[in-house]
């Protein structure tokens, strides 16, 4: 097993929202299910299958426990993208004939939600993509006003992947329940960071991912509420696994990994979050020394792990190149292959320039004080260097209002 201590990883990893390392305790639990207990959990005729099935059910309990749900409400998937697709397409299709064909979601949702809704639009549904407030939070009155008589489903993420803000899903869920709207919550970025109590939350469907919570990639889950009972149309057919909601051979080692990762999260969440909050505040204080910096998204309603900050007059991609000593992202990892500025920051009303110069720092289990201090020093020196290169910085220093300059079309 490769070791994961500081000296073994040259750049400092501050991109825990893109993916987390697998916790060594998780990896150790997974490996026996790759080597000795390699049975297919659907094999009923021999102990290889039974051992696998038992491990799968234990993991289901661990996942349920972290979010205070019944294990029977947990359906395995290949990840949050599949969970989101299954929840949104599955519920919309199942309830379209009784409730209607209008969907509400938020403009800052993950692409897996937005694009699943867009696909439903191609199939004849209509959709409202509600703009959040400049702090990234949903205005409850505006949400309520968006509900139509034919609204079938609303999908709102618990924690935003780019700016880390936490939505008030309890209040939004209550509005949905009153209006008879099915409510889906993408919680991929929330597990182990925010307390989730599904026994008491008015949420019908919730998506989870393992690899954002120190578990393996390729495994996720969907919570499907039993009381009230929520039905979804299967999107993947086959052997009838997962009570017909999701077919396909289950990857036992990955499920075991997710169970262990969620068990650890349940146990260590409170103390870990305190430590991470301290590190984030230290990072924030350090970076705010730099002139012309803007924190994106509300700071109070936010997970302690995230700091998204724009460094004005510096272009984001060149900044990322400059800070090779740390691994961070500019905008969501899932969209950074495109050259478009972050759609999340634009939805908050940030200018293109500020969106372009944003960096997301995401702190996690293995981040240290030394990592944070190094990062602050590195950012200070590199931003100074890039601003020396920047014609916009020069204009700003000369007192020119850049927003009033007529730029040539390009």
């Amino acid at each position, binding site marked *: 097993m490769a070791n994961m201590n500081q000296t073994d990883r040259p750049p400092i990893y501050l991109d825990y929202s893109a993916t987390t390392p697998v916790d060594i305790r998780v990896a150790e639990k997974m490996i026996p299910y790759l080597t000795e207990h390699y049975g297919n959990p659907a094999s009923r005729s021999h102990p290889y299958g039974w051992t696998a099935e038992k491990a799968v059910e234990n993991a289901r309990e661990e996942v349920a426990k972290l979010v205070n749900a019944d294990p029977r409400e947990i359906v395995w998937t290949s990840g949050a993208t599949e969970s989101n697709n299954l929840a949104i397409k599955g519920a919309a299709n199942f309830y379209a004939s009784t409730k209607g064909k209008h969907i509400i979601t938020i403009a800052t949702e993950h692409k897996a939600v937005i694009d699943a809704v867009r696909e439903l639009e191609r199939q004849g549904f209509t959709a409202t993509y509600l703009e959040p407030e400049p702090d990234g939070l949903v205005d409850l009155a505006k949400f309520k006003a968006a509900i139509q008589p034919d609204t079938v489903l609303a999908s709102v993420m618990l924690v935003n992947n780019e700016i880390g803000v936490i939505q008030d899903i309890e209040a939004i869920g209550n509005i949905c329940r009153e209006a008879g709207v099915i409510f889906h919550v993408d919680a991929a970025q929330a597990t182990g960071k925010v307390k989730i109590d599904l026994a008491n939350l008015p949420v019908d469907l919730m998506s989870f991912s393992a690899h954002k919570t120190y578990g393996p990639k390729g495994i996720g889950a969907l919570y499907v509420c039993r009381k009230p009972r929520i039905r979804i149309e299967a999107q993947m057919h086959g052997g009838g696994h997962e009570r017909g909601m999701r077919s396909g051979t289950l990857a036992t080692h990955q499920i075991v990994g997710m169970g262990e990762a969620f068990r650890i999260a349940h146990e260590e969440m409170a103390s870990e979050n305190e430590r991470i909050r301290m590190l984030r505040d230290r990072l924030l204080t350090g970076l705010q020394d730099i002139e012309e910096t803007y924190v994106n998204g509300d700071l109070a309603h936010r997970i302690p792990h995230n700091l998204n900050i724009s460094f004005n*007059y*510096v*272009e*984001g*991609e*060149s900044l990322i*190149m400059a800070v090779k000593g740390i691994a961070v992202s500019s905008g969501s990892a899932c969209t950074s292959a495109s*050259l478009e*500025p972050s759609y999340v920051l634009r939805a908050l009303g940030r*200018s*293109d*320039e500020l969106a*372009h110069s944003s960096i997301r720092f995401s702190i996690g289990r293995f981040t240290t004080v030394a990592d944070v201090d190094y990062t602050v020093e590195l950012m200070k020196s590199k931003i100074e260097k890039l601003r*020396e*290169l*920047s*014609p*916009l*910085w*020069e204009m700003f220093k000369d007192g020119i209002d*850049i927003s009033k300059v007529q*730029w*040539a*079309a*390009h």
Partner: protein
Amino acid sequence: MAYSDKVLDHYENPRNVGSLDKNDPNVGTGMVGAPACGDVMKLMIKVNDNGIIEDAKFKTYGCGSAIASSSLVTEWLKGKTVDEAYAIKNSAIAEELALPPVKIHCSVLAEDAIKAAVADIKAKQSARATV
């Protein structure tokens, strides 16, 4: 994204960063791009009486390829005539830096910056000639 060694070299050790006196009649300035697009390039050239570019400086807000493209052209411009400078094609820049297809627009921007700077110096010179 994998950058070529040449891009990395220019990015890490940019040549000719800075500004020239924009009020100098022998200095032409080209500013192209827009902050909203993520690139702004400012290129300044100083042309002597023989029409030879004596000095070139740049400042660029943009990605590594944009910075490298502008840094490279400041090297190329020095010693060239204004007309030779005007003839520099983006494809030559892209080839020299081995830019990937998604970064070709950076070389286009650098070519545009040269053309804008040359146009500016020519405008200044003709203004002087008509005086």
